[in-house]
């Protein structure tokens, strides 16, 4: 087993374990902080998969912005303490574990569908990772990119209107 694979599995294990902690901790703040650990581990996996730009975005947008939003709402609603009845009862637990396990089996089978053989696509020489993402983003995918700005504007307006004290 080479070094990359060892590092990959280390971060993968960290991601899965902290994801497990995220869904089992009773306090929403603890859940949010474990989710941040998962997001950081995923950023490390993105770097190992040659997606450095996405890894930086992951830390900036997810861990930096979205999770702070979550923590702010938890603080605003004063939900820091764990409620007594958060996890479902034994029946709900059984059904949930069964359905999630079924989905996991299906996903693991799907994984074997495989690709046509061929090595990883490397960016052409003299071109780093950022230009190879940025160039298609501003040429082929320019229209979706611009529409994203409309989506974000709509989200801002929607959030402001929904969170107003008098609806």
């Amino acid at each position, binding site marked *: 087993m080479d070094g990359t694979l060892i590092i990959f599995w280390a971060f993968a294990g960290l991601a899965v374990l902290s994801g497990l902690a995220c869904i089992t901790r009773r306090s929403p703040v603890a859940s949010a902080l474990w989710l941040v650990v998962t997001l950081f581990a995923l950023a490390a996996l993105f770097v190992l998969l040659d997606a450095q730009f996405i890894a930086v975005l992951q830390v900036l947008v997810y861990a930096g912005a*979205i999770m702070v939003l979550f923590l702010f709402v938890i603080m605003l609603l004063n939900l820091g303490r764990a409620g007594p009845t958060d996890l479902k009862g034994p029946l709900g637990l059984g059904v949930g574990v069964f359905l999630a396990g079924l989905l996991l089996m299906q996903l693991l089978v799907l994984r074997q569908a495989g690709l046509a053989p061929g090595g990883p696509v490397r960016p052409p020489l003299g071109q780093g990772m950022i230009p190879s993402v940025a160039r298609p983003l501003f040429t082929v995918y320019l229209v979706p990119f611009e529409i994203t700005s409309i989506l974000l504007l709509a989200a801002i307006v929607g959030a402001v209107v929904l969170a107003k004290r008098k609806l």
Partner: protein
Amino acid sequence: MLLEPALTVSGVLFALGVLGVLLRRNAIVIFMCVELMLNAANLAFVAFAQQLGVAGQIFVFFVMAVAAAEAAVGLAIILAVYRHRRTVDLQNINLLKG
């Protein structure tokens, strides 16, 4: 070749997110589990992007933009629900229950 390990991790994380959505009652925690599922899908996108070209990474970019918008609007909805019902426990929000 990290494709298959990455898809394994992606599948496990997605199943964990589904498990969280099914097991928890706190609306905010359920929302966090949805984010976990989005991230699992992103991991699969990036793993395929390594093999099939950079378009997968651009998809991840768009998924992140949609996730940010979704988080802002979703949390605003949770705030509005909390103002009405004084709770975010989904067991007590049963207006649509027959």
